[in-house]
């Protein structure tokens, strides 16, 4: 069964330093993977997606993620954190059951950015 595991429930960085949010996936075939972001008391916004094209995926707001099949990972990175990046981030995998696809979410990583 397809699933994702977010390895850190909380990550703290200082403004201007790099961000790394880790996600491992489990899938019997090449999956579709996504990262979503949720700012406090807001809905969810798609950051980026991987659908078996380029393994390095660029998203909005300077984020990018690299699909590594050998490591079954899809980590999210950003070279320099900004205060506005403070939010909860979800790694997501597409799951197919009964012929229809749905999205399965990881448990989330809260990114804290300090001045």
């Amino acid at each position: 069964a397809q699933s994702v595991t977010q390895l850190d429930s909380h990550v703290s960085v200082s403004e201007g330093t790099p961000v790394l949010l880790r996600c491992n996936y489990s899938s019997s075939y090449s999956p579709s993977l996504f990262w979503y972001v949720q700012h406090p008391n807001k809905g969810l916004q798609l950051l980026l997606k991987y659908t078996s094209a380029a393994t390095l995926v660029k998203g909005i707001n300077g984020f990018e993620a690299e699909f590594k099949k050998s490591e079954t990972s899809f980590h999210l990175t950003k070279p320099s954190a900004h205060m506005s990046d403070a939010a909860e981030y979800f790694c997501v995998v597409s799951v197919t059951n009964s012929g229809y696809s749905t999205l399965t979410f990881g448990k989330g990583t809260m990114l804290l950015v300090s001045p």
Partner: protein
Amino acid sequence: DAGITQSPRHKVTETGTPVTLRCHQTENHRYMYWYRQDPGHGLRLIHYSYGVKDTDKGEVSDGYSVSRSKTEDFLLTLESATSSQTSVYFCAISDQGGVHYGYTFGSGTRLTVV
């Protein structure tokens, strides 16, 4: 979010009462989904719909039912609300099952069962 509206935005209800949440879209998308969000659990799928009157269960469907009588509306009903159903509920839509394009989410409904 543009094209998808959830109502109500907030609701407080008593244990044992029925509750219906509404999701309305103007995008004419085929697929609609209901998720609940709880701390430490991320988002979990309750039910989804792949067409008018076509629905299926998700990971946490017990205690919930859904209906979709027209493309634009997807209703989630708690037949007899319990405190464990206190949560934030999100509706989502997609036009191709979400595999390649992900979902568009509504702004959520915060439900409190007392």
